[in-house]
């Protein structure tokens, strides 16, 4: 039987096990939305802005490990997706973004709502397809999902001309996908793994440095086994938090610009760094010439282009983290590094994350500590800025996919829609959205679908009435010239939440923090927004200033 292109697309998505499509309707995508209208197996989640839709699909993917799907129309619908696609690309999140395109005969004519989506998204996606012919749809869907979720995952764009959505063709879905030009290397070279094992046995001051790749590869178990078997201290990056429990004695917590002094000092003194699914990002390494100067480096990564990009590597291992760690675990055992472990413990004891209580102000770090106390098992979706760093520092993550944030692109506005995706993907979990006053208002409109769906999201705003991280840099590096960061003119977020149909609470005193969190726990018939009015000029410390080495970390202002 012949089906419309739109129906073939939907049937293909069903074959791929898609549960949800996040989208915003529009002219060139109407046939697809029409096909979804009577669809039983896939739920369409109408969002209020395409950026929000893309972050929701991304949040779903991060929380579940499955491919997130977003759907938008041509032109502005598609360009509004770009930030979300780039966000997913930087963090290697599996996503399929479907955009309607103008009729084939209009392509290239500057037609109404026409945009060269393939051209615009080329540098921020893993791959992309323009479909002009209905016969191509089934094969492209199968390929797109295969590419999005295998190798180093990433977003794939399917741009479909409206006439290809309308025309009919036979639905024949490929059983397998074989792309001759795409064969990700998933098994590490055994010779290299042996070399790595030998280095680990010889090292006196080794450390593990794990990143988001461990989470993406579902390799947390293997990472834990390696850490516990060797008893090598471990630091986990912002993207990997939860891959190894931060509550464990071997955990040095997050490294880098706002990371723990312990992890940063460890890098500076280590004689061996074992990087797993981490990419030596500038926010982790600081000044490269001073980064881990005495250490040999083992780098395990699925992406060969990531190895040796920023830091020369002694033992490169291209492969999937799960496979490589499984092999490595067979070859390594207990290490004889007691003095080094003692040194790590000393740094840990001496330099914990800490802050000073200022008068009767609500300290942002205190709010995070209290959130952790009440929601330690929750999925935490953070936005970008000071609150993100405080959440990373003061919430102790113990499970992979428990902490979701835009680490690579640093996209403000990610978290509220991201939390919607996470909650739909994990309906049995509590989802806490830790947001900032600047980032919250960037995608605040997505409170609408959250209210409509009665999602029990806990939206906690760390409100310092500033674009806080930028203000901190202005304070430290621009002579307190607070250009364009004053957000005192923001609306009352508690009242605004009520206007949206959510529950809104405002907290201005330290003693009200805990009762408000308790109250939020009991509200499960829709989102609850708590606006925590915190100390306005608190800074994030420790801090490695841009351009400095990790050893030059500023522990605090005092």
């Amino acid at each position: 039987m012949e089906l419309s292109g739109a129906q073939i697309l939907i049937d293909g998505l069903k074959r791929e096990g898609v549960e949800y499509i996040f989208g915003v309707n529009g002219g060139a995508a109407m046939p697809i939305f029409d096909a979804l209208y009577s669809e039983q197996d896939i739920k369409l989640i109408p969002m209020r802005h395409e950026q929000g839709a893309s972050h929701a699909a991304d949040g779903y993917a991060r929380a579940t490990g499955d491919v997130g799907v977003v759907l938008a129309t041509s032109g502005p619908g598609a360009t509004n997706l770009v930030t979300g696609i780039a966000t997913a690309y930087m963090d290697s999140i599996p996503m399929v973004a479907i955009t309607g395109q103008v009729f084939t005969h209009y392509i290239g004519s500057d037609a109404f709502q026409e945009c060269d989506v393939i051209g615009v998204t080329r540098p921020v996606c893993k791959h992309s397809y323009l479909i002009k012919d209905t016969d191509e749809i089934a094969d492209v869907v199968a390929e797109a999902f295969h590419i999005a979720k295998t190798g180093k995952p990433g977003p794939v764009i399917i741009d479909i001309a409206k006439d290809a959505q309308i025309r009919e063709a036979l639905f024949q879905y490929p059983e397998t996908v074989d792309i001759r030009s795409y064969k990700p290397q998933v098994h590490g070279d055994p010779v290299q793994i042996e070399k790595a094992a030998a280095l680990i046995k010889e090292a006196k001051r080794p450390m593990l440095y794990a990143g988001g790749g461990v989470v993406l590869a579902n390799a947390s178990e293997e990472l834990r086994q390696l850490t516990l078997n060797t008893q090598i201290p471990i630091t986990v990056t912002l993207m990997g938090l939860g891959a190894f429990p931060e509550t464990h004695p071997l955990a040095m917590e997050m490294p880098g610009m706002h990371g723990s002094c312990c992890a940063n000092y460890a890098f500076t003194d280590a004689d061996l760094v074992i990087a797993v699914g981490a990419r030596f990002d500038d926010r982790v390494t600081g000044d490269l010439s001073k980064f881990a100067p005495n250490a040999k480096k083992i780098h395990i990564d699925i992406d060969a282009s990531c190895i040796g990009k920023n830091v020369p590597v002694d033992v490169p291992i291209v492969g999937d983290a799960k496979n490589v760690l499984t092999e490595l675990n067979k070859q390594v055992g207990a290490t004889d590094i007691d003095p080094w472990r003692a040194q790590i413990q000393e740094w840990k004891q001496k330099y914990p994350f800490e802050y000073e209580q200022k008068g009767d102000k609500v300290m942002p770090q205190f709010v995070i500590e209290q959130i952790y106390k009440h929601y330690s098992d929750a999925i935490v979706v953070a936005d970008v800025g000071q609150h993100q760093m405080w959440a990373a520092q003061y919430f102790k993550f113990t499970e992979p996919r428990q902490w979701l944030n835009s680490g690579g692109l640093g996209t403000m506005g990610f978290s509220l829609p991201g939390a919607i995706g996470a909650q739909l993907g994990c309906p049995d979990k509590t989802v806490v959205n830790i947001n900032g006053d600047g980032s919250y208002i960037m995608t605040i409109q997505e409170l609408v679908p959250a209210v409509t769906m009665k999602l029990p999201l806990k939206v906690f705003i760390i409100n310092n009435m500033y674009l806080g991280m930028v203000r901190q840099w202005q304070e430290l590096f621009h002579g307190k010239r607070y250009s364009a960061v004053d957000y005192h003119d923001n609306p009352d977020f508690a009242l605004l939440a009520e206007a949206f149909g959510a529950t809104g609470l405002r907290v201005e005193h330290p003693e009200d923090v805990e009762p408000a969190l308790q109250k939020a726990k009991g509200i499960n018939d829709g989102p609850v927004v708590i606006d925590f009015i915190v100390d306005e000029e608190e800074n994030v410390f420790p801090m490695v200033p841009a351009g400095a080495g990790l050893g030059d970390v500023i522990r605090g202002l005092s």
Partner: protein
Amino acid sequence: MNPEERHIFSVLVENRFGVLARVAGLFSGRGFNIDSLNVAETHDKSISHITLVTHGDAQIIEQIYHHLNRLIDVIEVTDLSTGTHVERELVIIKIATDDPQKRTEILQVAEVFRGRVIDMKPTSLVLEITGDEGKLKAAIDIFNTYGILELSRTGKIAMLRGSEK
């Protein structure tokens, strides 16, 4: 700063809409250099052969190799500079020949470079010369002294020798 090297990459890609833009975009987006670029269909209509000349230090060259491989439509990347290879380039040059004496001289020089005349008008002629980079440079330098009106070259095409594949 490590020394810069010139490398010739032979890249087999799917002969498909937009692939060249992906390759070129990779270079512009990551700040890699393209010294010359040649693209054409091969004997297999589904595959195009890109010959790309670039330069950079060893780390950059390695990055270029890996990033090319990372593109989904790229079937195979070979760094020809790591093996013995043959390379050719073709140039066509239009030269002013305002007096017959000069024309004769130009034709003699063309002979030295095994150039062929592919067009001749009363006041100009067009020569075709093939060769490696050194030969073409020598030829262009000489013809420059006669006044080149127009010049167009293909960019390098190259492949590994014999059974090295």
